[in-house]
Structure formats: C-alpha cells, structure tokens
C-alpha cells in the first residue's frame, strides 16, 4: 500500500485512454441566420480524431520528448495537458502546476508593451505582483530585451517575442514545463541558452515535456521519448530507439510519396 502510494507520488502526469475529436464543418455557420437556415439542412460535418485512445505516464524529474510529424496530434496533446482543450474521454491527471509554452507563445497581447505583457502573463502563470517585481529584471535580462521592454509587442520580431515568452515561462517557477517547438524560431545561441536552462531545471527535479522535430535534441537531452503518428502512440522508449524508428518512418513516407509520383 505504502509502496503504491510512493509510486503514485512519483508520477508528474498520467494520461489514460484520452481521445480528442474535432469537427470540421464544411459550411460553418458563425451567424444566427446561418444556424437557423442550417437546421433544415442535413449537417455537413466531418469529424476526425486528433488523438485516439492515448495512455502514458511521465515521472517527476523526467525530460520527456514527444516527436512526430506535422498533424500527428502532438500539439493537441500538449493543449490537453495544459488545460486549454478538454479531452473527450479518458483521464488526465497532473500533479503540480504547469507552465505551458504553446504555439510559440504564452498569450501575449500585441497592443501592450513588453513590460505590461510580462506582468499580465506572469500573473496568469500564478506569480504574485511582489514576485514579479522581484523577478522582473531577471526575466528581461534572460530575454536580452532591455532596450525594447517598453515597446509594444506588435513591433517585436518573432524571435524577440519568442525570447520574452520563453523567459516568462521559465521564471514562473512551476513544477512542469510544457514546451512546444521552442527551438524552432530562436537562433542557435538562444537555443543553447534554452537547453542549458532545461538542464538546470532537470537538476532541481522539475519535469520537462518538449515537443520537437529535431532528432539530435532528443538524443542529447531527453530521458524518454514518445513517437506519435496519426493520433496514436507509435512507441515510447529510449531516445536512440525512437529516433531510429522516426527517421526510418520518415524515409519510408518519403519513398511512398515518390512511388505515387512515379505511378502518376
């Protein structure tokens, strides 16, 4: 009994039989008139499963990688973990607070200055005003945006707002970091800085979930990797095994496309 309890305490995230279905309406009505007219029509809605019956566990302190091609359901999965989407079925259990970083951002408002956005989003991530005051300089220093901090975010380049968002996300000091494609936009210096920060996080026992396409990053940093394909888990294993499978799969997919082209 005690042992079981201890094992449970060790789990940061547990996902059981989670599915997510999206509806793709082919003539979407966002107006009342459209909705009234469509009552009498046969509904023309196609549904597809972004995630099909997914189950896995992530231990505390683990650096967990998720790889997969575009449209495989990685981001949907991350959004469910973050609480942005609600799963259709199954159970999601999260032990600890999450600091999400989805779709290259954490919900900045382009009309606000960098400073106001830091205060807004750090509050959303659960920091009090006093804590933000204390951490403010460190957040700005990490993003290297001292000169531009009072400028509106809409005038930032994508790299700049990415850096600021990432800096706020890691300063939120939460137990679990969800990182979706963080490394895609930043330059190599910034990537290295991010990865150093991840290592630091790991050392102090925090859990990191990283979504990426990059096999090398996975091999270098992750403890465990999950390969997702068409909304299903293809395999969970060591970075080496999963990387090999992922690369092979990509080559096979490529070959399929080439073959089809030849037939045509």
């Amino acid at each position: 009994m005690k042992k079981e309890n201890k094992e449970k305490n060790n789990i940061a995230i547990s996902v059981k039989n989670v599915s997510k279905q999206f509806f793709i309406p082919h003539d979407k009505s966002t107006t009342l008139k459209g909705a009234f007219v469509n009552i009498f029509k046969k509904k023309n809605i196609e549904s597809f499963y972004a995630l099909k019956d997914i189950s896995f566990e992530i231990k505390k302190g683990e650096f967990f990688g998720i790889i997969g091609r575009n449209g495989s359901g990685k981001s949907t999965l991350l959004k469910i973990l973050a609480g942005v989407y609600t799963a259709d079925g199954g159970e999601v259990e999260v032990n600890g607070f999450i600091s999400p970083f989805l779709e290259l951002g954490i919900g900045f408002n382009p009309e606000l200055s960098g400073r106001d956005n830091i205060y807004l989003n750090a509050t959303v991530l659960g920091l009090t005003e006093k804590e933000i005051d204390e951490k403010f300089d460190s957040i700005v220093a990490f993003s290297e945006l001292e000169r531009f901090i009072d400028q509106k975010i809409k005038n930032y380049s994508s790299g700049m707002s990415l850096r600021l968002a990432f800096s706020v996300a890691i300063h939120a000091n939460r137990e679990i970091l969800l990182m979706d494609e963080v490394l895609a936009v930043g330059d190599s210096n910034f990537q290295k800085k991010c990865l150093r920060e991840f290592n630091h996080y790991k050392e102090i026992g925090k859990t990191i979930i990283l979504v990426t396409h990059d096999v090398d990053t996975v091999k270098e940093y992750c403890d465990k990797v999950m390969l997702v394909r068409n909304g299903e888990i293809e395999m969970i294993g060591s970075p080496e095994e999963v990387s090999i499978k992922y690369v092979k799969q990509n080559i096979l997919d490529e070959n399929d496309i080439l073959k089809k082209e030849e037939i045509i």
Partner: protein
Amino acid sequence: MKKHENYRELVLRLAKTDFKLRYHGSVLGYVWAILKPLLMFTILNFVFSTLFHLGGVNDPYYPLELLTGLLLFNFFAEGTMTGMTSLVNKAQLVTKIYVPRWTIVLGSTMNALFVFGMNLIVLVFFFFIYHKVPSIGGIIMFLIYAILLYVLIIAFSFLTSSLYVRFRDLSMIWEVLLTVLMYAAPIVYPLALVPEKFRQVFLLNPLAFIINYSKQGLIGNQFTNFWHFIILIFSIAIVFVISVLVFRKYEKRVAELI
C-alpha cells in the same frame, strides 16, 4: 487538473490591463470614461427639458434624475457589451495558456465598474450644484441597486460570452436591443408618464425597476415595496445560477471554436 491559486490578483490584473488597453492612444485617455456619459447627458437634457419641457417647475430635479438613470444604464450597457465579447477579445489567453475562463469574463466586466465608480464622483458633484441632499436610506438603496445591477451584468456576461464565440451576431443584436432597453426604462422620462395600467408590466423589466427606484430613492426619498424588492433579488439570483450553468457547459469547447 490543478487550479490557479491566486484568483483575486488575476482578475484585478486582467481588469487593469483592459482599462489600459481601452484608453491608451487617445489624447484625453481616462477622461473619456467620464466625458462620454456627460456628453450624452448634455444632449438628452437639452432635447427633453428644453424642447419637450420635461422637468421645469413641476420637476426641478429632472437633470439629476436623468443623470442618475443614464449612469446606471451606461454601466449596464458597457458591462454587458464588454462581458459578452470578453472571451473573443482575449482569444490569446484562451487558446495559448490556461486561465480559468470565468476570470476573463469577470475581469472584463470590472472595467465598467471602474468607469461607473468614476462617474459617481460626477454625480455627487451634480447633486452639490443642485443643492440636493439625498437621505441616508436613499443612498444605501442606491448602492444596493448598483450592486444588484452589477450581479445582473456578470450573469448576463457569463450567459452570452460562451455563446458569442459561436454566434458572432449576438453583439449586433444586443446593440440594437440596448437602444430599445434605454427607452423602455424610465431614464429620459419619469415613471409617472407611463399610463397607470402599464406601470406594473413596465417594472417587470429588472433594468427599469432598478433605475426607477434608484432615482426615486435618491431624489424623491420614495422606496419600493419590500416584497417587490425580495422578488427582484430572487429573480436575479435565479438568472445568475442559470448563467453559470450555461457557461460551464459551453466553456469547454471555447478554445477550439474561437
């Protein structure tokens, strides 16, 4: 799913940000919050007391009544409008991060509350000019009605904000209805002008009820029947519960539909 830990600070921060966003970039800035209803008041006062001869000797406090009604109505109109559109306007906070959605709705309506608070200062100033001192009871009732009105605004915002994500023409419909509501409540005219047999039906509209008795309490020192007051509180409570239930049902898919 673990919940956010500091709701109060979160709601206040959202409200503050809204307030900043709303008035940034305009030269007069926050002054507009006061100026807008005052300009409205000036126009209506001119039209109805000078051209239509409402007020005058029979009703020397007509401008005070007009301003009181107008401020309450403005509070309601602005609160419901920003509340309804809150989730769509804050789409980035809905789709990229998890914030309890009700905090977004509540934060947006607080903006109207701030503006209303600032306008109250103007109202006090006007009472001073007209040498009118309301009774303590009148002031207390006015504040209670203002709170009830705010509860009604919050309820309406919960009800419509998640639906507005699906049906964007709700805001157009509401804009028109607000104009209807303004003339359906005794703001520019006193209740006495409504034919006696319609008065009861007329006061079934909670907005008309609140505005009428706020005015009468402050200026005429007249109060409503106790049981009518209880019924008002009771119906607002029912509307509130229904709104929260609707909101909880529809907020789940909001992130996908925005």
